[in-house]
């Protein structure tokens, strides 16, 4: 069970309090009506799914209820850092490769 630091509660809590929210830093098209089917479905469905560093979303659902972002290594599962949705990712974080 992972130990995850919630950047809003400013404390580490067991994974049981959280819900995983998938890849982070995705940009929903400003006006979806203007983008092509390709671009829209790429936004909807494709994932980086990298082996290594991954920027991802979690929600402290049994806690403060906030969504936040985390950088986790998907090989070791270790969470390197977490940050609030309106903060920027830590410097030198590569966001999950190709």
């Amino acid at each position, binding site marked *: *069970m*992972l*130990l995850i630091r919630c950047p809003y509660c400013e404390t580490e809590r*067991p994974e049981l309090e959280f*819900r995983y*929210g998938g890849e982070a830093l995705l940009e*929903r*098209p400003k*006006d*979806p*009506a203007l*983008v092509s*089917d390709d671009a*829209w*479905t790429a936004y*909807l469905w494709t994932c980086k799914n990298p082996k290594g560093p991954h920027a991802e*979303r979690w*929600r402290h*659902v049994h806690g403060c*209820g*906030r*969504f936040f972002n985390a950088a986790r290594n998907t090989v*070791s*599962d*270790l969470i390197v850092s977490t940050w609030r*949705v*309106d903060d920027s990712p830590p410097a030198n974080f590569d966001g999950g490769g190709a």
Partner: protein
Amino acid sequence: MTQPFRLPSGGRIDRARVLRFSFDGRAFEGHPGDSLASALLANGVHLVGRSFKYHRPRGIVSAGSEEPNALVTIDRGAGRMTPNLRATQIELYDGLVATSQNRWPSLEFDIGAIGQFASRLIPAGFYYKTFLWPPRAWKHLYEPLIRRAAGLGKAPGEPDPDTYAHQFAHCDVLVVGGGPAGLQAALAAAAQAESVILCDEQPEPGGSALHDPARASELSDLLAKLRALSHVRILQRTTAFGMFAQNFVALAQRLSDHIEPSAASGPRERLWQVRAKRIVLATGAIERPLVFPGNDLPGVMLAEAARIYANRFCALPGKRIVIATSADSAYEAAGDLRRAGAEIVAIVDAREGRPIADDFNVIAGAIIDTKGRARIEGCTVQLADGSTLPVDCDVLLMSGGWTPNASLLSQARGALRFEPILQTFVPDVLPPGISCVGACAGDLRPQGDASRPIHPKAFVDFQNDVTSADIALAVREGFRSIEHIKRYTTNGMATDQGKTSNLNAMMIAAAERSVAPQDIGATTFRPPYTPVTFGTFAGASRGELFEPVRRLPSHQWAKAHGGVFEDAGQWKRVSCFARPAETMRDCVNREVLTVRKKVGVFDASSLGKIELAGPDAVDFLNRIYINDFSALAIGRCRYALMLHESGVVLDDGIVARLAEDRFHITTTSGGIGHVLQHMEDFLQTEYTDLRVWLTDVTEQWATFAIQGPLAGNIVQSLLPDAGLSQASLPHMSLRELVWNGSDLRLMRASFTGEAGFEINVPSVQGAALWDTLVDAAERLDGCAYGLEALNVLRAEKGYIIVGQETDGSVTADDLGYGKMVGARKGDFVGKRSLSLPHLAAKGRKQLVGLLPLQLAQTFEEGAQITQAPHPASGTHALGHVTTAFWSATLDRFIALALLEDGRARIGQTLHVPMPAGAIAVQVTSPVFFDPDGSRLRG
């Protein structure tokens, strides 16, 4: 004489008390402090089990949890039968009943042992190569035969009456292993004011010091110090079995199996889930058997085990002992056993530079054969010059050296390295926060290599009957990776997980492949370290504690009034309120007709409810639902649909405007969780500019529907001063009122097609209001109705249920709700996907009604729809039935269905193929009753 092999003094048993026990029906005696294994040895019993495949006689090999052979079933009374327990770990209590396993009719005479004679025919992997013809024989002949031979002990036949517990714990330091190294580490940490949990799988802490008389006082000293500290918790009979990310460790504590059943109380086992800042592994080392022909005979055991039996349990394994070794530690065992009264016939040392031990008959050589059937009687030693020497003995001890017990370290992804001097793997790379101490760290006495002849009867994995020849065979057949060798031979896959066999298998494979041991590597260690009871994982979770039971405010009333309950998620809901002598169907029909003709009340409290507030609430709703809320007046409500971004229907509900900036929203009963998650997701990460807040008020409000032509009368009598009229509270509007001193939210809304209301009161008032409503209804010849009736009522009107009419592929338009999409508003969640080719395509499945052409015919939900009455196998289905009911109102069977191009097919005749024959149906509009909705307005 009882206990002929019991030593007269010393050790850690309490000779003053005698415990009686039975093994395979024979009565024996032992003492407190004994394990079942030690008590059997004290009674001269060595034959305790049969091996898995060849049913060879097997004895006790070790004194600990690494035991591969001595597996027994313990019977503690009804439902309390446990198979596959290790005799070496079972603590003796008065009246203990143990039986041996995997033999028939008896341990001494086991028919299965003929397997031994066929053993040539059934080497590793034989089953992959045969049983191929005739093809059907595998299912009907061979596999049933193989299965009959499968397994070790029997599974219990009755439910387990015992309870299990869970405990979370945090500490600065978790020490695993209570030997000298672990105790020292615990004390050192405690001295730094660190909180410590120390666990040891044995009945008492002490580890190897328990059988080292020289360390007895040091041990009691250490323990006294530790026990005096309040920030140290010592858990005995507690196995650390799983290491998980970030120093999260699972421990299994055995609480009552060591107590006689009549005296045991409380939980049987407890799962500790410990989060430690630091972990110290002090798990000791495991002695390695030697691989020689006949090494599996009862009476052949590990050298240190014999020493433990003699020193700690005061049970002498035998009187004439031969020791085969490649490690110095065996000489200590030899000394202690001799002091205990045994004759050390010879020490056979395989190493070249073996230690000088003048006082023993040390022979340079190796064992190449043993003598005896159910117990060793002698062995053959091959000397350095190749000559052989027969030696008689009643016990043969072996020591191939020690291997740090690093399973937990490996589980935690630490790395091991092969240490040539010790001829074994030792910890190398430690994960952060984890350290090893003592024997586990590789702090071992000198030891060396022992030769391993390849011989069909030289056993490597004692439990699974894997021989050195099997490993050689696997290599010959092209299985090079140690993981392949493991799987082909099953070496290390038995209940001991290869604690005593993995290293030998690896060394043999390395030799066969002519590569260095480190290039072969080890197989993966996995949890659990030793087997853990399923009940321990489950803990208290059973029955209502397995999954919470959520009850509606009307639950007690329903129970007293014929309520037939059904599960819907965690909720107990009422299907119908059956009256005496009423069938389900009669009951549902009565409830339906009562609602249509009079009035009914329904407990809808499980509906999800959200209070939405904030200046941008309308904007938010417009982006989350397909509807346009801009024009929704205060006090008015709207039925609304919500889509997934992929365009399919996610949930539905009613949105009611309480104030300019406040809304009361309902969701489906099962939907509230994911709807809230969905809304919060968009609110927090997409529409971050909106000032809106969501509060889950599902459980704040009890919700009751009052439906039927007389619904207004009930509401009127309940709220006489509210001045309710069709004009002041029209269909789909809401009013906040006060009842009985509490807030009340009254909505005029209907899911039945009748004029009706939904009343919300704070849930503490729920039961009281329910009673009042039912009372009022009954006075008007109305009744309470359940889910079944509701389903009929809504189906008659063609109203959908999300999850029944929708299945994750259905859009609003498919349901006929395309018109709800706000034409003038901008983007909303899911909108873009609606124009993807497949979602915008013609001919999609659409919601329609179906009526069987012959009135008496019925079919069921999920039935398929075809053009032809007798479709050939593989015919394309045009759709399927989503809802199918007897409609009491229409006095006929009706159904809703999703049908390809359904709206265009209205009027057509299609078929529903049922096992007993196809049923012709007419496609109709999904609204069967009161299509223009005149009844809604009362």
